[in-house]
């Protein structure tokens, strides 16, 4: 076997070392990883760009629709406000207490021997109406005439209203008689308190009571 002398041993070693240079290998690995990353980034960037294009289209569509929607929302809000306000106003109008029928009822109860000198009616927030009547009753039995007037009031007012209560506050004989149908008759001064509620404005307890009595 022939003896071989490698005179380029050092050169070979250097060449090997160059090939195994960690920095070179690292740079190559970095380059490879960087390339993969760049490709991945490119893919993502492409997706983002296409999303941006779609978003731009949707934004344009929304820009067209938005003024109409804002206008419609504003109008709907306005209409909603009008509807609720109108309903509340309707309730206020419909739930008003009308005094003319009460006056008519009271006037219808005043007999020729009854004189009404004062009428004071008050409507409270809870729709309870209180009326104070003052006047005189004349007749051979003035107190009986006043009581008759009270009963008639109770009956007639009760026909149109609920929770009607008609009570004497005072009833006193007067000294001076008056002429009634050319006859001198004694007089009594009365003061009557009426309380009533319009139908439909009863308290819950009264409503239940009324419903129970209607069922019977």
């Amino acid at each position, binding site marked *: 076997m022939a003896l071989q002398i490698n005179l380029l041993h050092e050169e070979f070693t250097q060449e090997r070392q160059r090939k195994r240079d960690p920095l070179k290998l690292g740079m190559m690995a970095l380059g490879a990883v960087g390339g993969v990353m760049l490709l991945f980034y490119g893919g993502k960037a492409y997706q983002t760009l296409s999303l941006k294009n779609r978003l731009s289209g949707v934004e344009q569509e929304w820009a067209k629709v938005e003024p109409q929607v804002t206008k*419609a929302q504003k109008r709907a809000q306005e209409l909603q406000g009008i509807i609720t306000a109108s309903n509340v106003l309707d309730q206020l109008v419909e739930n008003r207490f009308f005094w003319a029928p009460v006056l008519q009822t009271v006037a219808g109860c005043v007999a020729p021997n009854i004189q009404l000198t004062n009428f*004071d009616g008050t409507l409270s927030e809870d729709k309870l109406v209180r009326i104070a009547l003052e006047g005189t009753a004349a007749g051979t039995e003035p107190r009986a005439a006043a009581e008759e007037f009270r009963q008639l009031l109770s009956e007639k007012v009760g026909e149109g209203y609920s929770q009607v209560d008609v009570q004497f506050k005072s009833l006193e004989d007067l000294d001076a008689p008056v002429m009634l149908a050319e006859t001198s008759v004694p007089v009594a001064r009365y003061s009557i308190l009426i309380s009533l509620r319009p139908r439909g404005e009863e308290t819950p307890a009264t409503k239940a009571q009324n419903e129970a009595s209607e069922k019977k």
Partner: protein
Amino acid sequence: MSALPKLSKEQIQKVILSGMGFCLLIYIYFTFFLGPLNRSRTAMERRMADLQNKLRNSKTELRRASSLEVTAGDATSRYAAMEGLTPEGAPIAWFPPRIKTFFGEQKIDKAVVRLDRNADLKEPELSDWTRYSWLITLPEADFAAFGKAIAALENAEPLLWIERLTIHAQPDQLQFQQVDLVAANIVKKK
């Protein structure tokens, strides 16, 4: 089992340098490239979803508004009619003459109308309306004529109601009664 080639000091330094370079690359990639891109993409997706949702809702809103327009026709006309009951100007300027004229037409003269107070209504829906309270004195009223006048007033003025009504017989003028009214009126703020 072959042992790993023993690295020289210089090679170890290069390996560390390569590792640092790799870490730097990763950091730069995620911090300055992929991170912002993902954030931007997420923001766009969110905005897209939001807009698409708005577009879907807008169709419903438009339909709702148009159907409301149809159903609110009656309420709108009623509301306009009630608004029309409030003339231009301060109520103190137009309400007393209106009531005086009204009672004058009912043959009840010498009506005196004074403003008692005004306040906002309790109902939040009627924030555009104000409640005025008026003291109305009719020194020369006939009971029968007054009864008819009250009925006519209550029918003619839907936004007015009487809170207190006092009728006194007048000892010196037996044919007349003095009437005092406290009337509340709802007026549109203008």
